[in-house]
């Protein structure tokens, strides 16, 4: 397992020693903070519900921006060859990079913990949905980061990787809002394929294994697909 951790460490340090983290994190906090607090005092409810309802759509734009460089940059500079001829497996490379992206999303999310803390000072906050919401956010981030890693393995162009990542994550977010256009036979499939429903279930404080399993499956499938893509490049 040690090479996985070494790659995780290198990738995470690459995020925080390059401008990426310092661009992505403030943009995320400004967007989320603005949309949340612009309606917060109008509703005058001590809940984070609106904050969490925004997360799937913001994540589907921000997470691919974090993951886009992971493989695409290495393939472009050629360091991919250096990496893959070190004594590591593809699993080490994929999981190490995935964990680094996931950790960066967690870091990006951590300042928002101030919201529930300040809100609990001015009103009676129900902590159940808050804990569920953060758990769901981490699961959602894992699934989207895995999709982003996959998108990054497809191309040596980071912009293409970003657009593919956004397209897939955005589809997963919006698909259950498009049921109106779907053939009735497939309704059930599209309804359960959407990430938003599963996330909102957890964010209500209802932790159902089906929802957890959904995020784990998306993440697992995307990472397995990444491995297939990399195997095909050999």
């Amino acid at each position: 397992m040690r090479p996985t951790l070494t790659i995780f460490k290198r990738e995470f340090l690459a995020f925080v020693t390059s401008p990426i983290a310092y661009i992505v994190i403030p943009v995320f906090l400004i967007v989320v903070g603005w949309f949340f607090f612009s309606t917060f005092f109008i509703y005058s409810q001590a809940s984070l519900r609106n904050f969490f309802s925004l997360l799937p759509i913001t994540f589907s734009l921000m997470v691919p921006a974090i993951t886009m460089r992971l493989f695409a940059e290495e393939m472009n500079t050629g360091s991919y060859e250096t990496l893959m001829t070190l004594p590591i497996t593809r699993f080490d490379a994929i999981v190490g990079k995935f964990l680094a992206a996931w950790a960066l999303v967690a870091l990006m999310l951590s300042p928002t913990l101030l919201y529930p803390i300040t809100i609990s000072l001015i009103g009676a906050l129900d902590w159940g949905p808050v804990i569920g919401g953060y758990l769901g956010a981490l699961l959602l981030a894992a699934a989207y980061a895995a999709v982003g890693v996959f998108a990054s393995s497809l191309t040596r162009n980071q912009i293409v990787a970003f657009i593919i990542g956004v397209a897939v994550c955005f589809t997963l977010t919006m698909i259950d809002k498009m049921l109106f256009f779907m053939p009735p036979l497939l309704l059930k499939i599209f309804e359960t394929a959407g990430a938003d429903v599963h996330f909102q279930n957890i964010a209500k404080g209802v932790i159902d294994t089906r929802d957890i399993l959904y995020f784990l499956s998306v993440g697992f499938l995307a990472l397995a697909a990444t491995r297939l893509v990399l195997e095909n490049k050999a």
Partner: protein
Amino acid sequence: MIQVDRLTRYYGNACAVDGISFHIRKGEIVGLLGPNGAGKTTTLRMLTGFLAPTSGTIRIQGTAIDEDPLAVKQCMGYLPESAPLYPDMLVFDYLGYVADIRQLPPSAKDTRIEELVDLCDLSAVMHKPVAELSKGYKQRVGLAHAMMSDPDILVLDEPTSGLDPNQIVEIREIIRRIGRQKTIILSTHILSEAEATCDRIMIIHQGKLVADGTTESIKQSAGGLNLLHLVLEDAAFDDVRRVIGAVPGVTDIQSITDSPLHVRLTIETDAVRKAVYGAIRSQDWTLMEMRPETRSLEAIFRDLTQEN
């Protein structure tokens, strides 16, 4: 040490490497020569497990690469062409990262990095990002990267390309120094470099191995025809052709200049020279010059890689 059997690789329909077989013994420094696009890099990428062969097998110390890629990669250090390293990392951090990935024990890590810094003369750039290094330094960091775990086999893809003459000499010096204990395979298209650093040369052309051996043996086998130059005075070409053409073992006579008469003989073996001299002495000619033509590696390389 390295056993390669009918190695073949296709990119789509294009054949990059076409049935190459060879065997490299421990301690050899092997130079892989060939024009651009001959399949050198593809061969090295397959040797290091980066690319999978379309067919054929590679055995490193008895282990097939596809059976246990990790074990094979463990005993091998590889410097890809133009040393693609992480540009944003400091040299110091980069070497630490390689040591960690190679799983050097923490007690040995610092001493090993110090050794490599001495060997590759990196102390001046340890705290610079890789992106700011000159090509020569980058190549040396790449060498340090390849040698981190003190591997038995070093594979270097064009280690001196793009360097200035001083840097080339330095890198060659390093290669020769480590080559005393290690098996090294390096690719290059600079012939003098292969001649200077390698014990053995393999020439690849259009994916095929067209020559394999020491410089001497390649020169001998590729120069199967021996050429002998004669410069004679007081002689006419017609007479020379009549007299020397009669010497057994002389297969061809060509005149190059008329006065002084310069002819080129094609002879079967070196021993024919004696008979040729005897034939000259029996005449009234003045022998100004008699010299065998040694074909340079360049000429052999051109012959081998330009046909068709």
